[in-house]
């Protein structure tokens, strides 16, 4: 099946815009009438629902932030009564207090529909065995993918996280054809299989991976395909908008954002101004039909750009590019925005390096100085100092081209840079402003 819901997914763009306007207008009237929180916010911004006369007027509406959820912990900005709620998810709170998201039955249905479309667009369906190796529980990944996979008629193997050897055995025995997990877990699983003498490519039926919840790159996609024979698809979402919701289709050219479910915008993170399609900036998401916790112009903090052309797959809904970084990770070096993710991407493409790195930023006089420490793989080391200087120069050159700012590079001994389990902290900024 090419589309889960062709009537919606291939809807002509003008019809989709009309539908989005209708949904937005309904949402705003409802929020103005029933959400004390958003009513106040609209009043403060001097906007009335009647001011929203076209879809483009969405730019008049005030933003919502992660801090709004934290400040109103646990459920003070919910728009549904407790007896309408059928589930809670709670985010891990790595960047502060945890946030709670509530769901009505309709919220869960829409989330599942969104994933049913996404998984179908990756070529999955009845007959597939999908191993869900995202955590089940408070985290949205496990249960979200679980219901999405069941909805399309696939068989779910709900392994959750951990116990990797058993996961590999079950993958073989039950002939899993796809896996949903984080990119780092997929790589870990591949390495563990290798140690067990099992080739994912030759000894299992695994052909696709739906991976997300962590930054990853095109280089990793290629590595995964070359080492495991698995096509990796990027999936996107965050608990505040329900969970993982959107993914790439089989074209793998951007993540489809279902227009009847969400309205994406990209803004300049500094001014808040909306940017044209194609311009890079901060993703802002309005979830159009959510009942329990509607999010309007929610500043997720992820950086991307919108692709507005109809995809080669025939789906008309807008796409976003792979997330290139986080607004809060952004460094400004001599006036230029630099994202650690861009450094990582560049470094992963250099075969002499291990892929581990650290960024150190200092201020020398009135100038910012950025230093990137990289590890050379033992095979690339040489007894000749010139060979090493050439590696250093090559890395400096690649980074300068990728970042548009000159950085100095230092080569570190193999294995000497910090390894991170979980959230990596690769930036040391010693500047005092």
């Amino acid at each position: 099946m090419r589309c889960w819901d062709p009537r919606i997914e291939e809807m002509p763009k003008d019809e989709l815009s009309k539908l989005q306007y209708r949904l937005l207008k309904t949402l705003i009237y409802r929020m103005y009438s029933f959400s004390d929180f958003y009513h106040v916010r609209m009043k403060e911004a001097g906007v009335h629902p009647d001011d929203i006369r076209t879809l483009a007027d969405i730019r008049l509406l005030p933003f919502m932030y992660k801090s709004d959820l934290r400040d109103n912990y646990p459920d003070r900005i919910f728009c549904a009564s407790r007896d309408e709620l059928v589930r809670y998810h709670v985010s891990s709170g790595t960047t502060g207090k945890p946030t709670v998201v509530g769901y009505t039955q309709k919220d869960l249905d829409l989330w599942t529909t969104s994933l049913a479309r996404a998984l179908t667009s990756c070529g999955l369906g009845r007959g597939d065995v999908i191993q869900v190796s995202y955590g089940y529980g408070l985290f949205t990944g496990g249960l979200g993918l679980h219901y999405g996979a069941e909805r399309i008629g696939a068989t779910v193997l709900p392994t959750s996280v951990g116990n990797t050897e058993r996961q590999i055995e079950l993958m073989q025995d039950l002939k899993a054809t796809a896996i949903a997990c984080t990119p780092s877990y997929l790589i870990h699983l591949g390495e563990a299989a290798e140690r067990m003498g099992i080739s994912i490519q030759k000894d299992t039926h695994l052909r696709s991976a739906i991976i997300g919840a962590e930054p990853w790159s095109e280089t990793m996609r290629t590595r995964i395909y070359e080492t495991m024979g698995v096509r990796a698809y990027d999936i996107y979402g965050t608990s505040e908008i329900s969970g993982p919701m959107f993914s790439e289709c089989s074209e793998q050219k951007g993540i489809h954002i279902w227009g009847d479910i969400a309205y994406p915008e990209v803004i300049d993170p500094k001014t808040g101004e909306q940017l044209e399609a194609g311009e890079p900036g901060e993703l802002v998401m309005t979830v159009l039909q959510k009942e329990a916790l509607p999010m309007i112009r929610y500043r997720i903090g992820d950086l991307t750009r919108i692709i507005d052309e109809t995809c080669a797959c025939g789906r008309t809904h807008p796409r976003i590019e792979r997330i290139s970084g986080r607004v809060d990770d952004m460094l400004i070096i001599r006036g230029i925005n630099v994202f650690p993710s861009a450094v990582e991407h560049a470094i992963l493409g250099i075969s002499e390096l291990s892929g581990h790195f650290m960024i150190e930023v200092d201020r020398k006089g009135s100038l910012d100085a950025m230093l990137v420490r990289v590890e050379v793989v033992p095979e690339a080391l040489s007894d000749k100092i010139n060979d090493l200087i050439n590696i250093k120069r090559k890395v400096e050159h690649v980074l300068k081209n990728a970042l548009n700012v000159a950085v100095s590079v230092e080569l570190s001994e193999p294995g000497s840079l910090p390894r991170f389990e979980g959230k990596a902290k690769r930036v040391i900024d010693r500047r005092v402003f």
Partner: protein
Amino acid sequence: MQGEFIIKQISVFSENKPGRLAAIAEALEKSSVNIFAFSIAEANSFGVVRALVDKPDIARSVLEKLGFAVQFTDVIAVRMKDEPGGLYETAKILGEAGINIEYAYAYSGKEAAVLILRVSQAGEAIARISAAGGSLLRESDLG
């Protein structure tokens, strides 16, 4: 025949910061590895420590256990007259043969000064030096 004059040098990649050389030297001392000759090449933040030792395999394994990246490199060692012109003799042979010296260092051996050479073509260098009457050391001659 020429192979016996190839000597195994250990080359250790190290960051250029206090304590790294001490760490290397301490590890060698603890495993009773004797250093015959030794040099450091440095470039700002990192360097390569090169050494000829009596037990290269042991040296390599103890340093690798400490996390150092170690390689063996083929070098040759030439006896020089410890007098003016001694270095010139050897360098001239190689220069005329079009053999490039990647790097070199020297130590004062028991009988003569010894020049350690890392050259582009070790076999060719051995042949030319021998043909010109030069004297090369075997691994067992070190010390």
